[in-house]
């Protein structure tokens, strides 16, 4: 499972405050916490107005890369911003994201063509997020065609089939899961990823929906997630589900994470 730590995102109120207050210590702390929890990448999203975005990203990236050796998942809704901010990243990371929308692919795929950078690709286009599996798969095929043009191997792609809110559409998970299964059947080496904030929007006890989503999505073949790695319950659930899906030989990953104290009861609370 490839864990992309979600906490350095300016659309989360705490991080927005840290950006606004130029709270360097807090940003470094968020980077360190997620690194210690076992994240593989750190998502960095400024979520500020467009004219300040590149400068803000540079400032956050310098802080984060001073506090953690993890590669960055560079996150912006603006393709122009992403291309401008790429050089600020010290290690090969993941661009988040392209989609079938506008000229995003035209800008980003050439910029990462001759690199090892990964790229998140959302299955939406200029029509929005399609309702049906068939339409999302059409967008997927179009993205794969473009990836081939730029020699971007499937293993570098993180497809996000997109989850909409369950509270307004009962098919939110089932459509996601079916896309995941079909994509994995076509390209076993491709990655499937998703964030978790959308699915439970507008419902009470959102944690429960998020956790059930995680199990079902991983069950369908999702092998990456943009989550809070310091959420022990969620992380434990990911490891457990992977083991149950035959993706963790001898359950060694699960046991290892337990022994490191990253899942299950915290180390200090365990009997000696």
């Amino acid at each position, binding site marked *: 499972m490839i864990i992309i730590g979600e906490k350095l995102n300016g659309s989360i109120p705490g991080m927005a405050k840290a950006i606004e207050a130029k709270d360097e210590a807090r940003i470094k702390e968020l980077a360190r916490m997620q690194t210690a929890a076992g994240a593989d990448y750190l998502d960095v999203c400024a979520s*500020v*107005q467009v004219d300040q975005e590149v400068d803000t990203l540079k400032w956050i990236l310098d802080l984060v890369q001073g506090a953690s050796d993890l590669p960055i998942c560079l996150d*912006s809704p603006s393709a122009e911003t992403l291309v401008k901010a790429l050089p600020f990243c010290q290690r090969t990371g993941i661009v988040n994201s392209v989609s079938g929308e*506008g000229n995003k692919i035209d800008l980003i795929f050439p910029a990462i063509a001759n690199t090892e950078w990964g790229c998140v690709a959302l299955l939406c286009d200029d029509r*929005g997020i399609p309702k049906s599996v068939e339409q999302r798969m059409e967008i997927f095929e179009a993205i794969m065609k473009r990836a081939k043009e730029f020699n971007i191997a499937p293993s570098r792609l993180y497809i996000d089939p997109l989850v909409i*809110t369950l*509270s*307004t559409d009962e098919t939110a998970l089932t459509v996601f899961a079916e896309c995941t299964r079909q994509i994995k059947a076509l390209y076993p080496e491709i990655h499937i990823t998703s964030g978790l904030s959308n699915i439970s929007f507008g419902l*009470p006890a959102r944690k429960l929906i998020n956790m059930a989503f995680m199990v079902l999505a991983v069950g369908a073949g999702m092998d990456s997630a943009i989550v809070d790695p310091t959420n022990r319950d969620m992380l434990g659930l990911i490891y457990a589900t992977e083991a149950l899906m035959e993706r963790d030989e001898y359950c060694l990953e699960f046991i290892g994470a337990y022994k490191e104290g990253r899942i299950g009861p915290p180390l200090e609370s365990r009997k000696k």
Partner: protein
Amino acid sequence: MSKIQEIAAVVEAGKSKEIEALVKAALDEGVAPLEILNVGMIGAMDVVGAKFQKEEIFIPEMLVAARCMKKGVDVLKPHLGETGGAMIGKAVIGTVAGDLHDIGKNLVSMMIESAGFEVNDLGVDVPAEKFVEAAEADEGINLVAVSALLTTTMPAMKATVAALNASKARGRFKVLVGGAPITEGFCKEIGADAYSPDAGAAAQKAKSLV
């Protein structure tokens, strides 16, 4: 419980199966159609919106309540006369150019409609000119609601509000803005009349504006 109270309770609970018969029964009893609409339905949706804001109810419950009201209004419509009766105004709503998000906009559209507005929903990715055109096209328009969900489309919201502010019909309508990255401060900065953080508040704001 009076028929009106029963209707309000059924709308609030979103019991779509019961609403048609109940509205018919109320009409048969001689209850004024306008009263059914204003007190029984719009009144109930006020309560729904307020409860949603306090997190006493959740989005799906708001959806079923609005769906229930819509069914009731269908029964009521032929009895309301040509004007549609109690309409407190006409609204234009849409998501700004470059932004394809419609979930929030749809909820607001539904709640504004349930508050007694006739709604012209322009959909997503709506250019500023189209907002202006729609606002100017109908003398009755007194509200324009503009949605943006991305930081990248906030400039499009600014441009849309600027275009609306330059409209010759600006004196006749108010401009309401909302969406995840939007704040009260941004609303003031771009010269909109009001900001709303959620669909329940949007309906209330809409009513107070016109």
